[in-house]
């Protein structure tokens, strides 16, 4: 037996008449025709029922009011049951202008619909004959439902409950009115009881008319039936169908065209509204070609903000396309980033792009590593190139062994013949000084956060390790090339194959050069760091000028607060001539005071320093290479030796002139006061004078003993220019002279490399002058003497070239002219010995070379 249908779901569960309801449940029949009945709230709604499935029917509610069942009946299952209730509202006319929460069928199916259009048969007059109350005081239908379950206020309903009706409609009606209403109702009922007959009596004419009309209607219907058959609507139906077909023919075309046009218009609208998005892939490509990555990134960000959250497929597609582009760009940028060689600034820019593009890898770190790798490969490359060159060289030298041995000395300065190792070292140094600063800079900006990247915790040590590693590899490679025996025997010699060295003598000559080169290349990157850490490159200055500077700045602050800035109602102080003058004077005093401080620092007989006298007194025979004050200054509470103090003060002096003074002036002018140029000029002259006098006293201190030793040394061991000792080398006095100058260079340089240029030329000049004087005193030269003099003077002239003033040069030349000229044979001898000297004294020459 087929079970009866049961309704278990209603959607929606309430609504006015005409509500479209989805009814769900079980056993609604196997096909549409199985459905034989449907009532909603007691009203038959089968006509509107649409069978969808055995568990689903869609129907439209009828005029049933209040809570009621929805009962489905099927052919085989019979009348069903209902678990859920539908609640019909009072018939409320939902016109086209009224908002409705539910879907209301607009086509009318029912006769009661027509009624509701004309007037209302449901909204009957009040049965009590009372006026209908306003809506202000009303019990809700739910409350009534609760109070009178299963009842209804509908007067036509089976379950009509009078209480409900009264509570619903006459809550505010007075008792008297109700009584009157009752009377009215009774009267009406009475009237109806006897009314049937009397009604007919009074209206007999009309009733007869109606009967006649009905008969006539029946006759007409009969004839029509004969004439048109039993299905009078068939023709009509056909005609309607026909006309519908025609209409379709007429309009389908137009309609489809219109649809298409509409679609196209929509699409165009979308396109133009979101042109930015759709054109982005193209514009990205264009901008990339132009290199405008900034614009690309900007656009990308914008698009991401605008469209990422939208779930529209077209946008998604476009976004995907863009995303693909961006991924491509990222890859491209990254490749660019690690492709060497590349400029650091360019790299920084790339890093910024990549970060902005939300990159998954760490561009900064990659860049650093890329650099390091590149450096390593470059070093390796360099090594291999030279290795190959050496092999070639060896082959060659085997063939021409003799010639190369001969050229040992003469070819030393010929770079073509320079040992491959040395060229290799130079090139390695070049590589390091070219590439290493980049790594350093990049690392610095990475760790200081300049690149706006989060620094990974482990990277700091890793970076340190990288840098150290580079240095270590570099050093070891160099060692392998020039001093392989210093390599660690087991490990390093395997990794860094020792080079075949040329003759050790030859090599030794080049070692200082190599050293100088290496030092230079390393100084470069490190210098950079110093610059950051010490303000300015004025090495050799002490705290003094800086302290002064700071003091002045503080002072300016006070001054500007108390003097320069005039408070309200306080006349500008400086308008007063007197005050102006006074102020100027004070500033002058200030600058002067500092000058005095500097001056007093250098004054010789400073009372607190007795030992100084001892040191200053020139000891002729003192070899300046081992200055006595080194020992003395130890037990002198770290007070620097007087010469050093001189140099320091000199440096301070220069710094004050170049920097402090300018800053002071700036500080004043910033707070609105311009120091009069007179004062500045005066202060500057003072400082210049001071500088000069310090320099003089230092020179005196240094060059006096230096120059003083030349003459005694020259004639040491009873030498004279007319004795006939064949020259083999420079005379000791010349060597001593050179060494002394080197010492001065060292001392000055250790305080401040800047001062070297102001001190050394002066010393050289006095030396040259002294030589000239000495030469002019020589009465007689032997041949050997002539040769020796030529050797000495030209060697000094040559070695001191770098620090020779024009006057020094003149003196040298004059000294040379005093010596009798050489004949051709002697000239070669002299040249030979000079050449030997040059080789022997390479180190010394290097020291005095200008870097």
């Amino acid at each position, binding site marked *: 037996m087929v079970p009866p249908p049961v309704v278990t*779901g209603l959607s*929606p569960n309430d609504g006015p008449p005409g509500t479209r309801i989805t009814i*769900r449940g079980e056993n609604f029949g196997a096909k549409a025709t199985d459905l034989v009945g449907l009532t909603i709230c007691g009203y038959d709604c089968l006509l509107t029922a649409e069978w969808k499935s055995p568990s689903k029917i869609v129907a439209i509610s009828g005029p049933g009011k209040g809570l009621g069942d929805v009962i489905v009946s099927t052919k085989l299952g019979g009348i069903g049951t209902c678990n859920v209730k539908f609640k019909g509202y009072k018939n409320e006319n939902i016109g086209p202008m009224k908002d409705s929460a539910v879907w209301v069928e607009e086509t009318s199916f029912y006769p009661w619909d027509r009624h509701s259009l004309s007037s209302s048969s449901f909204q009957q007059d009040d049965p009590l004959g009372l006026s209908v109350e306003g809506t202000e005081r009303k019990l809700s239908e739910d409350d009534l439902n609760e109070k009178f379950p299963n009842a209804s206020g509908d007067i036509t309903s089976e379950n009509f409950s009078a209480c409900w009706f009264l509570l619903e409609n006459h809550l505010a009606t007075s008792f008297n009115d109700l009584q009157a209403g009752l009377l009215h109702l009774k009267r009406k009922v009475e009237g109806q009881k006897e009314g049937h007959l009397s009604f007919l009596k009074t209206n007999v004419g009309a009733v007869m008319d109606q009967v006649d009309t009905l008969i006539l209607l029946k006759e007409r219907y009969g004839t029509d039936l004969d004439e048109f058959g039993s299905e009078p609507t068939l023709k009509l139906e056909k005609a309607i169908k026909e006309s519908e077909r025609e209409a379709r023919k007429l309009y389908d075309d137009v309609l489809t065209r219109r649809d298409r046009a509409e679609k196209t218009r929509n699409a165009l609208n979308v396109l133009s509204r979101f042109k930015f998005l759709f054109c982005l892939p193209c514009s990205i490509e264009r901008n990339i070609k132009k290199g405008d990555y900034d614009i690309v990134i900007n656009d990308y960000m914008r698009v991401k903000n605008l469209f990422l959250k939208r779930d529209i497929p077209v946008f998604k597609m476009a976004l995907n396309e863009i995303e693909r582009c961006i991924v491509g760009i990222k890859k491209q940028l990254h490749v660019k980033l690690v492709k060497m060689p590349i400029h650091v600034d360019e790299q920084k820019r790339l890093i910024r792009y990549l970060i902005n593009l939300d990159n998954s890898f760490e561009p900064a770190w990659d860049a650093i590593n890329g650099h390091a790798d590149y450096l390593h490969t470059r070093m390796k490359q360099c090594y291999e190139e030279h290795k190959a060159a050496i092999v070639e060289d060896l082959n060659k030298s085997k063939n021409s062994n003799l010639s190369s041995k001969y050229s040992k000395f003469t070819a030393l300065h010929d770079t073509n013949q320079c040992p491959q190792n040395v060229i290799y070292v130079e090139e390695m140094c070049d590589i390091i000084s070219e590439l290493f600063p980049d790594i350093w800079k990049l690392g610095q900006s990475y760790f200081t956060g300049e690149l706006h990247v989060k620094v990974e915790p482990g990277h700091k040590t890793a970076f340190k390790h990288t840098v150290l590693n580079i240095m270590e590899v570099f050093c070891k490679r160099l060692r392998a090339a020039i001093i392989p025996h210093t390599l660690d025997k087991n490990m390093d010699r395997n990794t860094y194959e020792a080079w075949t060295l040329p003759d050790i003598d030859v090599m030794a000559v080049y070692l200082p050069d190599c050293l100088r080169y290496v030092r230079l290349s390393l100084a470069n990157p490190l210098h950079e760091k110093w610059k950051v850490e010490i303000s300015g490159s004025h090495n050799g200055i002490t705290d003094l000028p800086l302290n002064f500077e700071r003091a002045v700045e503080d002072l300016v602050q006070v001054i500007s607060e108390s003097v320069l800035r005039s408070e309200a109602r306080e006349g500008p102080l400086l308008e007063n001539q007197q005050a102006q003058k006074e102020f100027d004077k004070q500033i002058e005093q200030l600058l002067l005071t500092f000058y005095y401080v500097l001056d007093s620092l250098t004054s010789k007989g400073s009372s607190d320093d007795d030992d100084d006298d001892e040191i200053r007194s020139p000891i002729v025979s003192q070899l300046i290479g081992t200055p006595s004050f080194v020992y003395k200054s130890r037990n002198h509470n770290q007070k620097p030796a007087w010469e050093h103090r001189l140099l320091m003060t000199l440096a301070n002096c220069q710094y004050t002139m170049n920097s402090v003074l300018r800053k002071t002036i700036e500080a004043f002018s910033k707070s609105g006061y311009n120091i009069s140029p007179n004062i500045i000029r005066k202060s500057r002259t003072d400082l210049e004078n001071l500088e000069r006098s310090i320099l003089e006293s230092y020179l005196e201190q240094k060059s006096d003993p230096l120059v003083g030793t030349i003459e005694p040394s020259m004639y040491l061991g009873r030498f004279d220019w007319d004795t006939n000792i064949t020259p083999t080398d420079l005379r000791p006095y010349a060597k001593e002279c050179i060494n002394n100058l080197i010492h001065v260079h060292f001392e000055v340089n250790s305080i401040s490399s800047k001062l070297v240029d102001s001190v050394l030329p002066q010393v050289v000049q006095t030396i040259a002058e002294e030589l000239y004087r000495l030469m002019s005193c020589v009465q007689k030269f032997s041949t050997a003497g002539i040769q020796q003099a030529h050797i000495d003077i030209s060697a000094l002239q040559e070695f001191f070239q770098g620090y020779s003033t024009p006057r020094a040069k003149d003196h040298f030349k004059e000294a040379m002219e005093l010596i009798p000229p050489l004949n051709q044979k002697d000239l070669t001898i002299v040249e030979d010995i000079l050449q030997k000297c040059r080789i022997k004294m390479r180190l010394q020459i290097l020291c005095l070379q200008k870097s």
Partner: protein
Amino acid sequence: MAQCGGVRVHQNQFIMSKKPTVQPALHKVIMVGSGGVGKSALTLQFMYDEFVEDYEPTKADSYRKKILLDGEDVQIDILDTAGQEDYAAIRDHYFRSGEGFLCIFSITEDESFQATQEFREQILRVKNDENIPFLLVGNKCDLEDKRKVSFQEASERARQWGVPYVETSAKTREHVDKVFFDLMREIRARKMEENKANNGRGKDRKKKSIKSFLFCYKH
């Protein structure tokens, strides 16, 4: 129960073979949540094993059927309410009749998750009961790739409210039965508790303990 009188007449008429039974317990469940989160989809999946692809905003739908809850015949009454704001005004009225609530949001839409806060507050206000049976449900969990609300975030909120959190999919039927059955168990437990209280026994027992018991039961 009186409302069902009409139904029972028919039942007696056509299912005569059965001896007259006691009407099974009725548990009233209300589906709340923003529009489009899948309240109707969950309900229809639970009721009829079907998944509706089209979105048709609900006003208020009623469903009721007999089910077996832990061996006991019960009736579940589901009121599927409107999520659309247009109907917000009529919610109070519905909530009053609810015995338990499934508060649904879609894990693919953060707004719907945020809205659960409001629903929760409204329910507590209307029911005036902190311990009303209540489940926080994250629907559409089959759309993992579109997820906007993390599991942690949602469970954190559930923890704060002291309610269970379950993720469902009306599409794949995942955990659909679970949420309804879990909620009904809570409602049943709640009713038993109240009965005892009304009978004067076990008055001192705290609701809290029942609550925590339910918790263990579910997880």
